[in-house]
């Protein structure tokens, strides 16, 4: 059985609301209050302080959007954000992205053409060298 002194201590500690009392002592506290009705004055005093404390409600704030926007983005998100920026003055980014395959295709085309041309020259040069090696000087003048 809980003593009146202990109940007084608990009311001074947790206040008058039952939901704030320690779960494992609630029943004993209730019984003690029933057994010692004179302790209701302490309960009243504790409630008075509870009510004053409850008057302090901080202004409500909605930080959800801010929190979600602050999340570090993935590499894919970062790439998409770069390619499709929300700001209209950055129109050149999607245009540049769209033009990228064309530029790459042109570059590849030019490069491969060079390779083909070089091969032809090389073959021609080889042919010339082989002729030079096999032909005698007289053959040229005949």
């Amino acid at each position, binding site marked *: 059985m809980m003593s009146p002194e202990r109940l007084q*201590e608990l009311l*001074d*500690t*947790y*206040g008058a609301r039952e*939901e*704030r009392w*320690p*779960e494992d002592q609630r029943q004993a506290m209730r019984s003690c209050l029933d057994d010692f009705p004179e302790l209701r004055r302490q309960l009243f*005093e*504790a409630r*008075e*302080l*509870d009510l*004053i*404390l409850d*008057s*302090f*409600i*901080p*202004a*409500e*704030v*909605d*930080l*959800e959007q*801010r*929190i*979600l926007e*602050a*999340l*570090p983005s*993935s590499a894919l998100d970062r790439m998409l954000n770069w390619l499709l920026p929300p700001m209209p003055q950055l129109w050149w980014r999607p245009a540049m992205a769209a033009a990228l395959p064309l530029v790459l295709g042109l570059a590849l085309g030019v490069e491969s053409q060079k390779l083909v041309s070089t091969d032809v020259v090389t073959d021609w040069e080889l042919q010339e060298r082989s002729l030079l090696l096999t032909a005698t000087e007289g053959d040229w003048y005949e």
Partner: protein
Amino acid sequence: MDREQEALLVGRVARGDRAAFALLVEQHQRPLSSYARRMLSDVSAADDIVQETFLRLWTRAASFNSAAARLTTWLHNIAHNLCVDSFRRNARMEFTDDEARLESVSNGPDGDIEAMESAWRVRRALQALPERQRSALLLCHYQGLSNRDAAKIVEVSVDALESLLARARRRLKEELLSNDES
């Protein structure tokens, strides 16, 4: 939301699921904001702390153990530590201007001036409490945490927490009820 659902959502957050994260933000942001705003005198610092708390949920969700604590306790623990750091950095900073005064408390249903004055007195009295007494009182009285969870967050035994709470309430009673009578 029960523990199982909570653990599932945190697991999804650990795998980078933004929708699950948004659900948890929706559920826990307001109580954490209330805690930080009651704990600190600087409203914008309090909001930064709430944002940082959720950022840590995003980056450290894998370390959350649902068997050891409820998510609300885990988040309060992070927010509490950030508040204590901030409080120690800016121990001398206090708001005295009317703008901060108005920003810090709810207007109430009808913008009741008397209610705002009362809220402001409570705020001042809470700010005047030593940091650990304030933390104990906020966690138990306003945030509704159990004495065991609050004791874990403040890093004291339950007996020590009760002592902090009793001293805090005694001091507030002297400050607020005596002022009320005068």
